[in-house]
């Protein structure tokens, strides 16, 4: 099966005081058509930056992607293509929804305007009326009541959940093959989050869209994803089928994360917290980036960055524990 | 144990300084401003001619005249010397006028924004009244009342500035008074003045500093407008605004008489602008 999106050895650098600092590096993953890939990790680990680089939306004056990185969409490279070419991909091939539905919709334009504009950008021959019909049916699909009225309203008149549905409807209105959802439910309440996650799942089935679901909430990933990738400090530390990750996590970081979440089902008197905190890109350790917080860290972990080690068919971990040589 | 992030922490101001040193443009501004200030401060000891000595035999000499490097004005006074001595006065006007506006505007803005209700209504209404009064008129009226002259011009233009600072401060205060760190003080039992002085005011300061640095130039220009109407600082005192407006009368025969003070004002405004921009970036915690 050929992957819809294939990212290899992605390195993203940001300009900090004159120098470019590598913020994300060695990120390799793929998304298959129709599947849901979850990307989890704590704040600042590079989830958003990775997804923006796929869309070509990194700030061009102070960030760049290093040369060896490859991003291939449907066999086409997305690195270094012109803004024009990108415009044809954005929205039409790959669509994106963002964390905060309030700030992601333009507050001074009507919902209808923003949606029609997108459709017409990709299908200029469509009349405004026709485009409006499309979006109305799309809005109905995401469960928005009074869709005909809503298109003349402004984002602030709607609740958070509604706005996020509109973002989803908009993202799907051009039938993209890949939907990148960057923390789509973080700003929402649990009951609303549940609605939205249900919605994404059902739409994905209907349109057979591949979804890259980015979140910091492991539970959300467990709920909807086929495969999961765990990121820490700009690198992928573990990747595998959802069941692999949640049932037999290998990387100490993944294990730590899972243990620090209070459980609804069991009673624990004390949480297992990972000590320390996430380093910022300037102070990434030279070896394994998790080493300073890792209970199993050895000399080697501090000095040499580990590679991806295969654990089972679709399960990889970036930890010396799973290399052939072992930790020492 | 020394923290990994380094030694003793730098205060926000020290960090700002470091950022400024890194920022070339604002460094240029600082250096320029510093040079100007040095020049002005040293005016009494520099080998300059008497800036108010009239020499009618040498009127309106062009730039490059031996003995008067930058020429002379319509009374034969040395332009270079007048520019430097005038800078002393103009810069003082600018800074003091801004200072007065800043102090009163800040106090009014803090009180209005923090206590709201009655204070807010009364103070802001009064500010509205001042703003609805076109500044030239206000200044003329004040000067007509107090008499023309440097001090009164300064008072006039600074009164004009008060409502703007009051507005800036009030809106920051409105924002900060509901922020959690202020709430935290209330929860600790802090009194109103403690909160205003220790917490709200320091946070209002950076935008004020930026606005103020830009306004110094504006004040000098406003004062020069007063001089044009004959109400500003009074001759023979060398002051850029006076020089500019007097020079305007000789623009056809001796353009340098108004060009030079204009250029001087521009350079000061430019440097203050660079400094202001630099400060804004430096004081913005989000900027790198």
């Amino acid at each position, binding site marked *: 099966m050929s992957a819809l999106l294939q990212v290899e050895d992605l390195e993203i650098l940001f300009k900090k005081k004159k120098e470019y600092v590598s913020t994300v590096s060695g990120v390799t993953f793929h998304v298959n058509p129709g599947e849901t890939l979850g990307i989890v990790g704590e704040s600042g680990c590079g989830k958003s930056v990775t997804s923006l680089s796929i869309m070509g939306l990194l700030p061009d004056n102070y960030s760049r992607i290093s040369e060896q990185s490859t991003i291939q969409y449907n066999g086409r490279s997305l690195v270094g293509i012109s803004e024009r070419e990108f415009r044809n991909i954005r929205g039409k091939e790959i669509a994106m929804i963002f964390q905060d539905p309030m700030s992601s919709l333009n507050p001074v334009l009507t919902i209808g305007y923003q949606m029609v504009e997108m459709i017409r950008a990709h299908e200029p021959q469509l009349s405004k009326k026709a485009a409006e019909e499309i979006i109305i049916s799309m809005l109905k699909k995401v469960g928005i009541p009074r869709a005909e009225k809503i298109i003349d309203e402004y984002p602030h008149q709607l*609740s958070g959940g*509604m706005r996020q549905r509109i973002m989803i409807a908009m993202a799907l209105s051009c039938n993209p093959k890949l939907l990148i959802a960057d923390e789509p439910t973080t700003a929402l309440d*649990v*009951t609303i*989050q549940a609605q939205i996650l249900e919605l994404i799942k059902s739409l994905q089935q209907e349109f057979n869209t591949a979804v890259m679901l980015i979140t910091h909430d492991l539970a959300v990933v467990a709920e909807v994803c086929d495969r999961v990738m765990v990121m820490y400090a700009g690198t992928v530390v573990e990747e595998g089928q959802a069941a692999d990750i949640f049932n037999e996590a290998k990387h100490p970081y993944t294990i730590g994360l899972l243990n620090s979440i209070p459980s609804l089902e069991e009673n624990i008197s004390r949480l297992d*917290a990972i000590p320390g*905190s996430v380093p910022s890109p300037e102070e990434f350790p030279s070896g394994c980036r998790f080493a300073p917080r890792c209970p199993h860290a050895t000399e080697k972990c501090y000095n040499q960055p580990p590679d991806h080690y295969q654990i089972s068919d679709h399960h990889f971990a970036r930890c010396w524990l799973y290399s052939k040589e072992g930790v020492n | 144990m020394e923290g990994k992030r380094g030694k003793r*922490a730098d205060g926000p101001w020290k960090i700002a300084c470091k950022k400024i040193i890194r920022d070339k443009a604002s460094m240029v501004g600082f250096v320029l401003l510093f040079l100007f200030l040095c020049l002005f401060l040293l005016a009494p000891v520099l080998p300059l001619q008497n800036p108010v000595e009239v020499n009618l035999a040498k009127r309106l000499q062009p730039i490059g005249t031996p003995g008067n490097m930058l020429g002379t004005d319509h009374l034969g006074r040395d332009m270079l010397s007048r520019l430097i001595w005038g800078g002393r006065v103009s810069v003082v006007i600018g800074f003091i006028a801004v200072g007065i506006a800043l102090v009163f505007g800040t106090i009014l803005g803090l009180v209005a924004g923090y206590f709201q209700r009655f204070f807010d209504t009364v103070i802001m209404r009064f500010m509205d009244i001042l703003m609805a009064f076109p500044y030239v008129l206000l200044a003329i009226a004040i000067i007509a009342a107090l008499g023309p002259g440097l001090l009164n011009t300064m008072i006039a233009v600074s009164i004009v500035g008060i409502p703007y600072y009051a507005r800036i401060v009030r809106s920051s205060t409105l924002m900060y008074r509901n*922020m959690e760190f202020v709430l935290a003080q209330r*929860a600790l039992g802090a009194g109103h003045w403690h909160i205003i002085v220790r917490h709200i005011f320091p946070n209002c300061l950076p935008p004020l500093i930026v606005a103020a640095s830009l306004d110094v130039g504006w004040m000098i220009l406003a004062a020069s407008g007063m001089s044009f109407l004959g109400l500003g600082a009074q001759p023979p005192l060398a002051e850029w605004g006076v020089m500019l407006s007097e020079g305007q009368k000789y623009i056809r025969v001796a353009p340098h008489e108004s060009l030079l003070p204009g250029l001087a004002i521009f350079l000061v405004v430019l440097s203050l602008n660079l400094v202001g921009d630099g400060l804004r970036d430096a004081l913005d915690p989000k900027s790198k």
Partner: protein
Amino acid sequence: MAKLLQVTNLKKYFPVKKGLFRQTVSEVKAVDDVSFTLYEGETLGLVGESGCGKSTLGRTVLQLIKPTSGEVVYRGSNLTDMNFRELRPFRKEIQMIFQDPYASLNGRQTVKQILQEPFQIHQLYSRKEREERVQEILEKVGLNKEMSNRYPHEFSGGQRQRVGIARALMLEPSLIIADEPVSALDVSVQAQVINLMQDLQEQYKLTYLFIAHDLSVVKHFSTRVGVMYLGRMVELAEKSSLYKRPLHPYTKALLSAVPVPKVGSKRERIILEGDVPSPENPPTGCTFHTRCSYCMNVCKQERPNFKEVENGRFVACHLY
């Protein structure tokens, strides 16, 4: 267990001003007739969706906002009747920790200044003692003393929240109202902070009013849990019974909506229809009736009483 704090029929209505002369046309019923009791040494968790009035409740209890009506009695003293000055001694007793550790610290003060400020306000201790106490507390919350000269922006989120906690502890309070203290933190740090708060509770015999929106955190942390919906308390019970057998339909839905980090944990999920109504214009009767699947006629008209249906279990629902 001794009663520490008794909240009776607490209401906080914010006026909504409209019209030609900004007259008050309606009210946001941010807190609408809430009563509960806090016992010494316990942790009362408070959950509910955004905008349901949790923060407002916390702030009114603390008298940071004057309630519209109702009583807050702390150890026999009625706080609601007191003026600014009379409240001051109680400010030492009751403290608050805020959601956003960055916004709740003044970015222009060093940690030392922040932590000494409570003493300055209440004029306690000498200079030297103040310094010593700061060091002591810093150690307690897991920060080292070298950090006392740093500014908040130089800390990570978790460390900042520790500073916030340290500040709340400076005056040795008996009650701490924690308004979503871990919501802004990452999971790994959240766990650290929760552990810290638990440790401190033991050491100082603290009582917590713990506000959060994450049900699993509340469950982990609290002794009893209250559930709020649109300004009202809909259910209040011992943690174990509430999570095992929620009574109110809203509590049920809320619990079922929480995702669990387990693959294939097939739970019966109640997906609520629609959005939370606006508190400015809440539904009549039971405010939840618009989204409730058990809705009966009476629910639309009559507001259910908040009553004790079992021992220590309060519910506001016509079903019980």
